[in-house]
């Protein structure tokens, strides 16, 4: 089957989980000999040749096409709220907007055709990029008529998917990796929500990364449950990582690793840490990452007078992430709302027992982990204490966790995806 797939990023140039998931999925589909045309706003040239990559920046848009005018007209209103930054805290926002200002250019203007140079980043021009991306989506759909089905990942590429569907008449699959409710709680960004909703309604079928996300889609976006299939993520490599990196402190280490934002529930980790330290001061807690709640967390840790036992690393990259997993004795992911959450699986690969919130998609696939409600700091503290002190339970989780991991393969995910494609094509009127 030939699939026209719209993404936003692809390894090695990624800033979030979306790119990793796309990579795994494409790899899995390639294993099943599926043909993929993968479109990203910007290609860097060093992507692994798993698909037929199309760089949206190279596409000339022919404005003479009537339908394009209609698409553009419906989309340009989005630029009004172009200051919206969906995935980033203020710190990264600054970084990326600087980038966008310097690198963004409209190039090759001629009377009838325009190429638009995408930065491929999340930033100030994001909404404009999303809109332009939709136009190039339409153009690609017209130029390349050899595909059978369209597959769009998350709201950033939904407008492109919708446009491609309109031009080609081929069915659209909308793949939801996260919703606006996960990112922002109840204070959703209306324009983003509207795009998500439009994409889901325009789609012939929807994929959700977890049952949890499916519930959100049904409840919040008014989609009938039978239109949504759950397609859990997998891991690219399930092998156990034996790190040579050694811990330099005598105490056991309990780790939080992720963006320090509302969605990830860092404050529950801080409060649970206090409860554990009151009982056993010989533990070190580490909050690794950066985000808009970082300073508030530092304040709270100082206020609770536990800063000599609770450490902050700032944003970690490269080897440091592996080192952090390697020296951790317990990994905690207290997310308030996590559509999937790949990081506990990384922890399992490092033989680190994990505690995950029940409000995460990964809780649906990882059986051998302690699961607590994100708000239940007493249960969280209990679980941390138990994993630190009762060798039996941590040993058991280590062994069973790594066995479980081996079952989470992208090949299996892709096989399921192929059946969804086939069903969607066959049920089309």
């Amino acid at each position, binding site marked *: 089957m030939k699939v026209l797939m719209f993404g936003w990023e692809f390894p090695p140039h990624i800033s979030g989980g979306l790119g990793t998931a796309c990579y795994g999925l494409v790899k899995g589909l390639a294993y099943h000999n599926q043909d993929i045309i993968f479109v990203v706003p910007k290609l860097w040239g060093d992507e692994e040749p798993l698909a037929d990559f199309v760089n949206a920046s190279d596409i000339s848009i022919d404005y003479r096409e009537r339908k394009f005018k209609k698409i553009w007209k419906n989309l340009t209103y989005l630029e009004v709220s172009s200051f919206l930054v969906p995935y980033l805290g203020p710190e990264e926002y600054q970084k990326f907007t600087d980038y966008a200002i310097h690198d963004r250019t409209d190039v090759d203007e001629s009377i009838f055709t325009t190429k638009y140079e995408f930065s491929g980043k999340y930033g100030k021009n994001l909404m404009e990029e999303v809109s332009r991306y939709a136009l190039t989506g339409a153009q690609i759909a017209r130029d390349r008529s050899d595909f059978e089905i369209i597959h769009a990942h998350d709201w950033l590429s939904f407008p492109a998917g919708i446009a491609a569907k309109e031009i080609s008449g081929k069915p659209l699959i909308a793949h939801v990796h996260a919703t606006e409710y996960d990112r922002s709680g109840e204070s959703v960004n209306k324009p983003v929500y509207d795009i998500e909703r439009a994409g889901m309604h325009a789609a012939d079928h929807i994929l959700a990364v977890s049952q949890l996300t499916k519930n959100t889609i049904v409840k919040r976006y008014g989609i009938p449950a039978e239109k949504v299939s759950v397609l859990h993520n997998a891991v690219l490599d399930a092998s156990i990582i034996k790190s040579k990196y050694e811990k330099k*402190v005598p105490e056991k280490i309990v780790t939080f690793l992720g963006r320090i934002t509302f969605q990830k529930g860092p404050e529950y980790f801080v409060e649970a840490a206090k409860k554990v330290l009151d009982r056993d001061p010989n533990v070190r807690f*580490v909050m690794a990452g950066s985000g808009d709640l970082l300073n508030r967390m530092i304040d709270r840790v100082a206020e609770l007078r536990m800063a000599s036992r609770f450490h902050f690393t*700032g944003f970690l990259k490269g080897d440091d992430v592996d080192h952090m997993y390697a020296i951790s004795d317990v990994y905690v992911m207290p997310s308030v709302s996590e559509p999937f959450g790949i990081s506990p699986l990384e922890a399992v690969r490092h033989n680190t027992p994990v505690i995950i919130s029940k409000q995460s998609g990964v809780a649906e696939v990882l059986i051998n982990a302690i699961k607590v409600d994100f708000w239940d700091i007493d249960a969280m503290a209990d679980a941390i204490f138990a994993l630190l002190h009762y060798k039996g339970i941590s040993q058991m989780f280590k062994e069973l966790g790594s066995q479980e991991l081996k079952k989470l393969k992208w090949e299996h995910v892709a096989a399921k995806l192929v059946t969804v494609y086939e069903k969607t094509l066959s049920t089309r009127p």
Partner: protein
Amino acid sequence: MRTICFYFQVHQPYRIKPYRFFDIGEDHYYWDDFSNRTIIRKVAQKCYLPMNALLLELIQRYQGKFKVTFSLSGTFLDQMEAYAPDVLESFQRLVATGQVELLNETYGHALASLKSKAEFTDMVQKHQEKISRLFNGYTPKVFRNTELIYSDKIGEMVADMGYEAILTEGAKHILGWKSPNYVYHNSLNPKLKVLLKNFRLSDDIAFRFSNKTWEDYPLTTDKFINWINAIPKEEQTLNLFMDYETFGEHQWAETGIFEFMRALPESVFKHSDFSFSTPSEIISQVSPVGAIHVPTPISWADEERDLTAWLGNDLQDEAFDRLYELEDQVKKINDPDIQRDWKYLQTSDHFYYMCTKFFSDGSVHEYFSPYDTPYDAFINYMNVLSDFVLRVKEKVKEVEKV
């Protein structure tokens, strides 16, 4: 006799290098040698060397009539020995003229006086030894606490150590209607004299000198002489206390600050009845007019003249408490590295960097801080402190085994 007392605070902290969580337990060297050396060399060129040369010139020209007073912190002197022996030598030459008085303070420019008498006394003792060693057996008689921090209790401790006088801020809220231009004494121990900074005239030079929006800009010696002549005749002492880095660093050479200082003594001698004295001379000649009551500590910092630049927010209090709970253990350890780091970690600047008073005096704090935010300062300090705690524990174990 009416007299001017010029006192200069000369201090540089040991700045901490970027120290990450992963370094805890592994890297036991905390100090940012590169940035410390760079800053010392820069300030030496802009301030210490030219200003010391100017003061020497004035002392020699006026033959015993022009005098100044310094307090040189231990962390400053250590860095002079390491990075700027030329500066150290120029201070030694100044002291050798006999017209320069040196004060004692805590070795680490620390806040120990607020926490522990034992540590405070110990650090003062160490500073005494350092001054004596570097300045040919010189023994200061007058004390100056970190950032002019003072309270009745601190004064009492200082008197117990045998000092005759202490310098502090002439803060409005403790003086009320009183004038800073008299000698006072400590309210608990009258033997200790208290000299108060005239902050208006001091800050005219230290802060406002180059401020073009100031109504009295530019400050000339004529103007300054007019102001000091306007001081009522019965007020005998004018204490001009300031950071030494005022000259050439806070006020650049281009502002004319050096020319102002070069011309000032001549104008004072010609057009006023003021002389120049050091604190020891003042207390031997002027009697105190009464006690000054300072129940809660004051300092010379910020608009509030209190301790909030260093202590009071959660970050500062947490760091401060975690540091000083080590005191008893550190005392047991006879290890030069531990003792050095213990002194340097106590330096008040580390706590100053954690100040979150963004909206009033934040800009001044920002200017002096090597960190982007108080949170960065806190994290870096706590990482280092966490490693220090581990080392102290190890060493104490070794000691107890023996």
